[in-house]
Structures are given as C-alpha cells and as structure tokens.
C-alpha cells in the first residue's frame, strides 16, 4: 500500500496566494520530502477520478489553501481523505506584512521566501505523521 502523505494544494489559478500554495507543495514533494509525500491534482479529485479517489481515501493528507474558501481542504474531506493539517497560505503571509509576493504567474523574492517557509511547515508535519 502506498503510505506516502498526500499533499494537496488548491487550484490557485490566477491568484498569487494560490500560486504560492502550489509552489510550496511542489517544493515539499519534489525537494524536501520526496520519499514520504506526493501530490494529487485537485481537479482529478473534484471530477471524481477513480484513481485520485483511491489515492486519498482513508489516507493521511495535508491540504494547502490559498484563500479562505479552503477548496482543497473541503474537497479532500468530501472525497474521504484524512486531513491531518489544513494549511492556509494567508496565515504565513500575515507574518510578512508589507511585502510584495509577485504576480499570479511569477513569484518575487519575498514570495519565494514565504513558499520556502510554508514548505518547511508542510515537511515538518509530514515527518510528524509518517
């Protein structure tokens, strides 16, 4: 059985905080914890893709949402994933008041700094639960 923690960001298209959620997740699963985690595309989950559902159902998941609508967290829960941690990009962003993070397509240095921080938080949680 695949026991990797599933780390799922929101779609985040067209919004800088959404982009940060995606980037933080990609950094985590590809660089920080490649052996302990993997990601699943949220669109597969919401369109009812069988393989995506099987991947997260009953599995430990960490969701990362760019805005308070919490699409990733809600949809993973609906699909039967166990959300061990629902990370909000905004919580970390709030600690960096006054900084410019970039655009919906390109993060600035401050934006990259924040995604590194979020990625470290995700990795810490992965290490705790795996």
């Amino acid at each position, binding site marked *: 059985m695949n026991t990797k923690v599933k780390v799922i960001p929101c779609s985040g298209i067209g919004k800088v905080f959404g982009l940060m959620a995606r980037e933080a997740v990609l950094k985590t699963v590809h660089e920080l914890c490649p052996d302990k985690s993997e990601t699943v595309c949220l*669109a597969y989950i919401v369109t009812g*893709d069988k393989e995506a559902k099987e991947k997260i159902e009953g599995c430990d998941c960490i969701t990362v949402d760019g805005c308070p609508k919490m699409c990733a967290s809600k949809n993973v829960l609906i699909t039967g994933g166990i959300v061990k941690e629902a990370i909000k990009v905004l919580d970390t962003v709030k600690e960096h008041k006054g900084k410019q993070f970039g655009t*919906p*397509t390109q993060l600035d240095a401050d934006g990259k700094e924040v995604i590194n921080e979020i990625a470290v938080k995700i990795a810490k949680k992965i290490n705790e639960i795996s």
Partner: protein
Amino acid sequence: MVENYAILPCNGLDKCAGVISGEIAVKLCESGKNTIICPVFSKIADAKYRKITDEHPLLVIDGCATRCASKIAAEKNYRIFRKITVTEEAKRHHIELKDNLRLLEDDNSLVEIIVDGFSDAGGMAAGVSEESGFSFEFEYETFQKDKFIFRVPRNTSVYFNENDCWAYVIGNRARIGVTDFVQQNLSDILYFIPPEIGAIISQFDAAGEIESSKALVDIISPVSGMVVSINEMLVQKPELINENPYESGWIAELELTDFESDKELLIGFDKYFELMKKKVEG
C-alpha cells in the same frame, strides 16, 4: 486579443500540459478583459460563475486527454464556445512536452503561440468563421491519374468518411468539406447551397449541396453537431472548392455533439488515401 471571455483552464498541477493551460489562461487575462474560472472553486461557487458563463463566451483549456476542465464544464452545463487541449496543440506545432513542471523555452513558445493565436479571434463571439482558430497549413500527399491530381491532407486532426468528405477537428469544433476526389469528379462547381446556421446535423446527414454541370451532390457530414458558421465566400465563388477544397473551399463549421462516437465511423489519412486511390483507379 480575445476579450470578455470566461476562461476555464484545467487545474494543471502535476503535468507540464496542465501548467501550460494555467499559464495561457493567466496570460489571456493579463492581456484582455477576460475572467478566469477556477476549475475547483467552480464546483461550489455556482452562482458566481453561472453569471459569468451566461454573459460571456466560454473558452475551455484542457491540459491533457483527461480533460478535467471539459468535464467540469459539462457537469455544470456550461455552454462551451471554444475548447483547446494543450497536448493536441503541442502536437500540431511539433513541440514535445516533457515531465517538467517549470516551463522551459519550448513550453513558453507554445504558450506564446496559443495566446497569439487568440489575438485574431476577437470576432469569434459574433460567429465570424474566418477567425475561429482553424489554421490551414496542411502537408499534402498527392496521387496523379492522367492529368488529374488528387491531394489528401496528412494531418492527424483531419478525419474522412467514405463519402469523400473531411472534418478538421479542433477541440469541440470541426470544419467540414469535400475532398479532391469530389471536386475532380464534379469538375467546375457552379453552385453551392450551404447548410443553415443553427441546424443540427447528424453524422452522415447532408450538410449542404454542391452542383456542377455534371451532377448535384450532397455534402455528407462526417460529424454530428450544430452548424455555427458557413464559408460565405463559396456562395459567390463556389469555384474555390475546385481551387482547394481543404482550405479556401471549406464548407461549414460545426460545434460537435458526439465526436467520440462519430470517430468510430471515420478514417484517417492512411486509410482514406488508399481508398481514394482505389476509387480513382476504379
């Protein structure tokens, strides 16, 4: 540049084609007054996006053949005005997509090509057929019998039926027309009777007629769908079909309703070329 569109891209998290679809959507929004529909949020924000999709033509950008964005649009009953799939566009432009999630030079070129391709599409909302994104840069295979030359486009997006009609399919749209075999047999085409815009046509139904001094023939549609535009030039100049039935002589454009099923009864270049040769030799 396209403006006032609602754009529904795929989520595009774990595949290069998906990342490209998101990039295209964002670039189209940055350069025109378009609105992105978040594929995931649209699942729960029906009222918000319903208004946008009711008021604006919808462009769906799928990354790969899984077509999540299309599925979401179908589930929501959004009326798709135009649809593209990044992997198909890449193939069409001979760009190879790899596993990278950071866009490389080729990927950015593809984004640019597709975004630029929309720069001429402003008239699409008014149903201006010349601007619907079909580009004709076909490579042809030819077969000669006496003085007659028969060409067939070698393109994986072009399908044929055994009635010597073709359909060039992009996303959920197709242009249809007749092949060289028809126009060579008819000789000088004198009249073109187009199908009605808005008509619902089933596969193998007649989609207009063409007439020469030799015969009157029905154009047998290879695909089912609704006629969204016709080649109005043909009404004045039906001889364009003789000049090039695949390019300036296209007949009509259809919004497809069941292409996956239609496809089962169509053939590609290889089979049609052989079939046509047999008919010519006949």
